[in-house]
């Protein structure tokens, strides 16, 4: 896509201007020794615990670690447990809303703060956007509890909006940094060219900038989604009556006994996600 742009100026950029010679090399420049091995090991290591987790969702016993034979009892139990289903749906809904809003906001902010001269307030914007990363969750959680509780008392309104706002805020830096990293590896050449060809700003953005930065946006969105899905401390403090999510439901179990019911729920969410995304890729790759 972007093969014609020159990279950010570095001392090594100069050789790009020389005509490429095609000498047979014994290897591809795209492969680095050992990298593929590490990557495959990583994928293996990433999925090993997941395999265990999925296995124990079929456990006949009540334990997450003592195998007592195959059974679907936890799937039946989860299917009968309205509270845990509500929590799962609420978690997904919350992560979807927070990640989407955060990614849109982060994309705009990243466009504004990269590939530019220093302008007044640039550092401040940068620091502010990254602020949620810098403080342990418990502190933000207590601060939000105090402020949001006051708003709840004042307005009498206790919907999911508080949780969505809180989640969106801490998701912004997780979406912002990958997008910013992507933008920093791009320069303005193509956009300038497009505008020279009388493309409007919007058209230039839609047809040139957006496709170029798309991988960064996808990476940011995925990160924000899993970060929101896993959050427990802030949710615990902000939630109102009946606003349980899967992580807070689990946290409550920690002191008592953790059963494979959550493994079953996790497995279902996992499968739904994989199928959904596989379908999506299937469809989009056909179109290509």
């Amino acid at each position: 896509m972007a093969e014609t742009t020159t990279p950010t100026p570095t001392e090594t950029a100069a050789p790009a201007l020389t005509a490429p010679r095609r000498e047979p090399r014994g290897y591809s420049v795209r492969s680095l020794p050992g990298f593929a091995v590490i990557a495959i090991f990583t994928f293996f290591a990433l999925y090993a615990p997941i395999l265990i987790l999925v296995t124990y969702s079929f456990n006949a016993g009540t334990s997450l670690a003592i195998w007592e034979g195959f059974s679907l009892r936890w799937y039946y139990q989860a299917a009968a447990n309205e509270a845990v289903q509500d929590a799962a749906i609420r978690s997904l809904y919350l992560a979807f809303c927070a990640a989407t809003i955060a990614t849109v906001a982060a994309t705009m902010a990243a466009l504004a703060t990269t590939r530019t001269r220093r302008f007044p307030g640039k550092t401040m914007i940068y620091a502010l956007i990254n602020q949620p990363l810098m403080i342990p969750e418990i502190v933000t959680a207590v601060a939000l509890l105090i402020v949001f509780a006051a708003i709840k008392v004042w307005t009498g309104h206790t919907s999911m909006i508080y949780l969505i706002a809180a989640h969106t805020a801490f998701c912004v830096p997780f979406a912002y940094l990958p997008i910013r990293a992507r933008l920093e590896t791009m320069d303005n050449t193509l956009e300038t060219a497009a505008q020279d060809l009388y493309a409007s700003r919007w058209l230039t953005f839609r047809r040139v900038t957006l496709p170029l930065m798309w991988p960064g946006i996808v990476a940011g969105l995925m990160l924000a989604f899993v970060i929101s899905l896993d959050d427990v401390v802030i949710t615990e403090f902000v939630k109102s009556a009946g606003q349980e999510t899967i992580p807070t439901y689990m946290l409550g179990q920690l002191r008592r006994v953790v059963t494979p019911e959550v493994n079953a729920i996790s497995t279902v969410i996992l499968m739904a996600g994989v199928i959904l995304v596989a379908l999506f890729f299937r469809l989009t790759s056909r179109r290509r």
Partner: protein
Amino acid sequence: MSAQAETPFPPGALEREAETADTRRRWLLSLPAIAIIVCAAAGPLLVMVIYSFLTPGDYGNVKWEFSLEGWMNTIVQRDIFDDTLIWADAHLSIFWRSFSLSLITTILTLIIGVPTAWFVATQPPGRREFWLFLVTVPFWTNLLVRTIAIQELIRSEGVINLVLLKIGIIDEPLQMMFTDFAIGFGMTYVYLPLMVLPVYAAVDKLDFRLVEAAHDLYASRWTAFRRVILPLIKPGIIAGSILVFVPCLGAYVTPRVLGGGKNLMFGNLIELQFGAGRNWPLGAALSLMLMAAVMVALIFYVRITSREKADG
């Protein structure tokens, strides 16, 4: 949508005007992100700034009496037995533990994450996003059941020990559960996507003709990596390192569960003050200090990198 190039303007007033307009546009564009953070993160934190200057309430919360105890106690405390003023060495050693854990986790995620991101980004174009998705899929499950599964892997009779015993590398099972190894392993696992995704975003954009050119100029693969590839994907590596290192400093759920909780992390220390310790001002002061330290480091970093760019 206005992030486009600064086309060369004639010098003088026109330029300044254009610059002001540009600045305004950039602020407007950042506004949604800033608004969300001010409303639901940074703004409410002002409450904590105020609380850090108050007196602890008897049973949690605060009393509205001004006090510098909270800030003072972050560094010096009265000895509980003879009332002399002593350094709060517990706070320092706990901070040091969190700091080294963050550093180790960042290095480990770099070693594992960069090659993984590279692998994903060098897949044929249509498949990259799918591989990327595969990196995040494990994180759709719940943190706690995932951590329990990790412990299952590393227990004395867990899969890792069984395999190692079978191939004869070790003679008796290794004690890995509740060790520093367990924390490092688990933290690397949990924080890996935070490194892989930003690095991927940078590698995906890499112009491989530059790497070819370096090889054509007889650079070894290592030199090419160090002198060509690394500088080009640096923004991704930096973004990933920030995303791993900074949240790691205040993390406490994962190190607690995996490390067996014998030693406090900085996040635990703060949590203790807001919980059973009932000293909210101290908790607030400790966390504000942490935030200030990280923020100074980040701003310093931004200044340095933007100077580099200006020089370049």
